[in-house]
């Protein structure tokens, strides 16, 4: 992964903790959880958009990890191993829910409305509207396949070849889905910036920059 984000700074090296966890030391399990919980939970939350589901999946990912911890031999970084495991848990969950028969090799428009290719048709800028709340909402509106690729690449820092492997698709397809996802997001931001759906019945429009509240 190219943009691996660090775990909690200053926490004891994973190798020591793993060795202790392999011996059944409860503190080591706690410490491993503490060190990696934010990253795993955030991934689950972003992929599902639902707190309850994200908590369940975080739980499931860590349980799977701890059950397999005796087999960990350090061939790859522990965080990479855990993260990949968490991604698989989430994708499996989404498949079970039938949300993402995420075959990315499907036809171009299988993921929702057609994307306008007229990128240049609208030069309205998105100044100041891409904050955390807005991004969460916008990503929540993406079709599952687009969402997965966008999160894995732009948020989690996976490379296209890794995504292709994880999602069982071609590299080209991963790239194309990512591009479409970004364009969809832009479209979403443009719509919500310029045509806010929400007006209260007094006719007032929410204030400028409302997403930043």
């Amino acid at each position, binding site marked *: 992964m190219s943009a691996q984000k660090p775990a909690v700074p200053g926490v004891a090296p994973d190798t020591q903790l793993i060795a202790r966890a392999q011996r059944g030391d409860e503190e080591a399990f706690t410490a491993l959880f503490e060190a990696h919980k934010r990253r795993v939970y955030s991934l689950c939350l972003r992929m599902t958009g*639902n*707190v*309850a589901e994200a*908590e369940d999946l975080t739980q499931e990912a860590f349980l799977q990890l701890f059950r397999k911890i005796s087999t960990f031999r350090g061939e790859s970084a522990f965080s990479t191993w855990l993260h990949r495991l968490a991604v698989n848990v989430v994708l499996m969950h989404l498949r079970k829910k039938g949300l993402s028969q995420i075959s990315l090799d499907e036809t171009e428009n299988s993921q929702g409305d057609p994307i306008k290719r007229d990128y240049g048709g609208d030069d309205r800028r998105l100044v100041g509207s891409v904050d955390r709340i807005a991004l969460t*909402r916008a990503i929540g*509106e993406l079709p599952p396949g687009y969402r997965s690729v966008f999160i894995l690449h732009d948020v989690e820092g996976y490379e296209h070849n890794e995504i292709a492997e994880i999602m069982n698709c071609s590299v080209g397809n991963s790239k194309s889905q990512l591009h479409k996802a970004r364009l969809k997001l832009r479209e979403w931001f443009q719509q919500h910036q310029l045509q*806010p*759906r*929400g*007006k*209260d*019945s*007094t006719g*007032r429009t*929410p*204030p400028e920059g*409302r997403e930043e*509240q």
Partner: protein
Amino acid sequence: MSAELSQSSGARKRSVMRGVGMFLLIPAGLLIAATPPQVEKNIETTATPRISISNLSGKVIVKGWDRSQVHVNYTSSSPQVTVDTEEFPPQGPVDKVHFTTYIIDHSTPGEAATVDYTLQIPAGSNLEIRNPQGLVQVESVQGDTSVESLGGNISVADAGGHLAVRSVGGNIEIIRPSGRVEAYSINGSLHFVDPATSRLHGTTTSGNIVYEGDFVPGGDYILSDYSGNMDIVCPPTASFELNAKTVRGKVNNTFPLVSRHSSAPPISSANSLFGTYSTGKATLELTSFSGTIHIRQK
């Protein structure tokens, strides 16, 4: 002369009446201006929409009903706060509705940034509420429900789905839940009444925990407090395995427990108790640091 007098008197009367009218109109106008903005609307939805309410302060009261419709009524305490309603998709029955309270003028004092919400929502809705300050009451919602507050009290009755409730300082009351329950507070107390769920987890630091009701066979009930007391009141027909531990507190139990898998007395020390009551169908894990754990019959 008399006619003049009469005319003059009439003019005076009209003038006085106009004065009185104006006098009455000014406060009436002020009264209208001071009436808090109240909004009422209906939104046609699917049977299981996702509803979220993100408020700043005020009451949020939500009730599930059997219609595929959201009926919302909200009252702002001042024109300086407004509510943004977002509905998805734009056409057809709505699947997601977000209500978000915004402050227009950030110099608005906290007490003026209050919005009270009352909603009826489809019983199958998934519900998410964030209301830092103020009461939250939810009733008869069968989908997953998540409620977060900072200082407000939370009461949820007859929830059917996964229920996650969290408040830093508020008390939490959960009545007759039938789905998985997770309740968490730092200073607030937790009160569970007649749970019909098989998974219940409650944690508080300085609040008390009261559990009133029976346990579902095969259920897991994990309750933990730090300095508060815990009171478990259940019927004599209950069946459970008990694992109660404290660091510096006490365990008081009135049930005749036996040791697991034998009729020997339960394992007990000054601040812990392990044992089985009846056939031990449910599992109770109760922990406290310095509080007292009471387990008693109803």
